[in-house]
């Protein structure tokens, strides 16, 4: 266990420093001076030169990178030129919004895809299995923005049951709960298509093991075979995959957030990137990677807890 923690924390630190260095140098080597990017196209050359000197941008990259890491470590994430607020406030506000969206979606994805995956995988190549496999393949093939447009055209344009935007401001006669329905539906459909096929594949593999045949041959009811023998073993591999979905739910939902004008973390980074809000991009990328690696570790941890063979 101690080795596990040390190994993973070391990887976390390695990843974070690699990513921060990458994003930092990307700012340096992309066309145009850093000061020019901060001040915008309408600043005079004198202003650009002045800021370059003030920020010490005429010093070597490595020196400035070390300084940058020092400021980060002291908890100062910088100032967002896009939102005119400290980066920390901007990030946590948007992250909280996305966490809400992700939590609701995650609460739907896990039970839905577990049931579908297990039911499909317990009798391979049955009609039910083929049906579920086809359905999940097709659903996972539709890009999120297209799913959003399809669902919106039915439930917003045609039926008028739901609002087409989810700004989280309870205006226009729609409650926040009603606003969340469509974004959550898009995420759940798109993501469970993938998770279902993973759980199904794992279930199919487990059902071919000798101990399942033994359980069937000794006359256990099929229900008991599935619930008591197959399920726990079949969920081993997917647990890691399900944990990895958190990563997608936090950072990958930028498209869904854009479709429904949802004030979330992904859209914040998109805006930062489009406006060349460098401090926000750098901090946002670090937060995204931190979350990604941590969920990765949690997935590994869950795997260890479920599998008695490597629990020691």
């Amino acid at each position, binding site marked *: 266990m101690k080795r596990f923690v040390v190994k993973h924390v070391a*990887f976390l630190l*390695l*990843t974070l420093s*690699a*990513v921060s260095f990458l*994003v930092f140098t*990307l*700012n340096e080597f*992309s*066309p145009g001076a850093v000061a020019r990017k901060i001040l915008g196209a309408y600043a005079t050359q004198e202003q650009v030169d002045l800021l370059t000197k003030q920020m010490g941008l005429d010093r070597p990259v490595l020196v400035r990178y070390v300084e940058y890491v020092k400021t980060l470590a002291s908890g100062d994430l910088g100032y967002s030129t896009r939102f005119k607020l400290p980066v920390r406030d901007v990030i946590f506000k948007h992250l909280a919004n996305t966490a809400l969206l992700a939590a609701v979606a995650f609460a739907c994805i896990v039970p839905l895809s577990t049931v579908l995956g297990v039911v499909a995988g317990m009798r391979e190549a049955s009609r039910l299995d083929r049906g579920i*496999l*086809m359905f999940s*393949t*097709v659903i*996972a*093939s*539709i*890009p*999120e*923005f*297209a799913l959003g*447009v*399809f669902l*919106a*055209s039915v439930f*917003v*344009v045609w039926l008028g049951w739901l609002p*087409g935007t989810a700004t989280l401001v309870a205006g226009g006669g729609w409650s926040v709960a009603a606003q969340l329905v469509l974004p959550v539906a898009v995420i759940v459909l798109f993501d469970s298509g993938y998770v279902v096929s993973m759980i199904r594949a794992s279930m199919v593999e487990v059902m071919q093991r000798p101990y399942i045949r033994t359980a069937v041959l000794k006359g256990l009811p099929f229900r008991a075979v599935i619930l008591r023998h197959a399920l726990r073993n079949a969920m081993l591999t997917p647990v890691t995959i399900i944990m990895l979905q958190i*990563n*997608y739910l*936090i*950072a*990958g939902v*930028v*498209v869904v957030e*854009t*479709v429904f004008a949802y004030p979330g973390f*992904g859209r914040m*980074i*998109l805006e930062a*990137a*489009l406006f*060349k809000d460098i401090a926000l*991009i750098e901090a*946002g*990328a670090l937060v*995204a*990677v931190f979350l*990604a*690696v941590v969920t*990765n570790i949690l997935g590994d941890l869950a795997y260890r807890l479920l599998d008695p063979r490597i629990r020691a």
Partner: protein
Amino acid sequence: MSTPVAAGTLSASSPAASRVWARRWRRRVAALAESTPATIGIAIVLAWVVLALLAPLIAPYPPNANDMAALAHTQPSKAHWLGTDHLGRDLLSRILWGARPVLVIAPLAVLGAAALGSLLGLAAGYYGRWIDLTITRACDIVLSFPVIILYMIILAHFGSSAWNIIGVLTLTKAPIIARIVRGMTLDLREREYVAAAKMRGESALYIMLVEILPNARGPLVVDMCLRTGYNVIIIGALGFLGIGLPPPDPDWGGMVKDTYGMMMVWPHMALVPCAAISSLVVGFNLLAVGLRELGLRD
């Protein structure tokens, strides 16, 4: 499937060898035709390829031509079968022309990722030790990064062009391929024919590319097919986010971005490109399902 390919002895120019190849291909095509998902998938993908190739001939209008008169009635009509967009451009023509960049960029990026990923995976699996450790760690780092955020950052810095998209897709997908190839190399490098090649004094590069890689191709082909589908999704998503191919040339994702705000009035403008991109990805993914079934049966 698991027969080692002795490339040196079978040169494709001799008539006997070409007959062997032809027979092998015919058998594969026949097997594919047996699988329903694969048949549907191939049909969809081929249909889009043909439509894209014939776009200059069959598109009723130039893709960027505005028909201002049609703006009064943008819905599908006799003059515009799928209607027009908010600038009076014929949707059918734009869909047909828009198939071209996607069908070039997505496969090219997959080929790039396969080439780079195979080399990295072969080197990691074959040499082991610190080379393996370095490559595996580097791949882990790239993979731990949420891809779409990586695209946003890189494309926002360097601007977006077809080549930049191909480059970014190649770099981010190569680690996945590298992982697969590394795993298979670890297994394959212990085989007798690899030992035999070493005894013959073949170079490491020859052993990796000629003895090992061809035998790792099964899972690779399925994965490349899936990747192509994902790439289509990502190219569409980038277009939708406004960091895809630059306007005005038609790009499916960009067409949705331009028009989905008008869905309450003209839903068809966004629905048509959405249907086009969805059908293409469904085609690639069904093909992958079919290929995987075949792989399992072997």
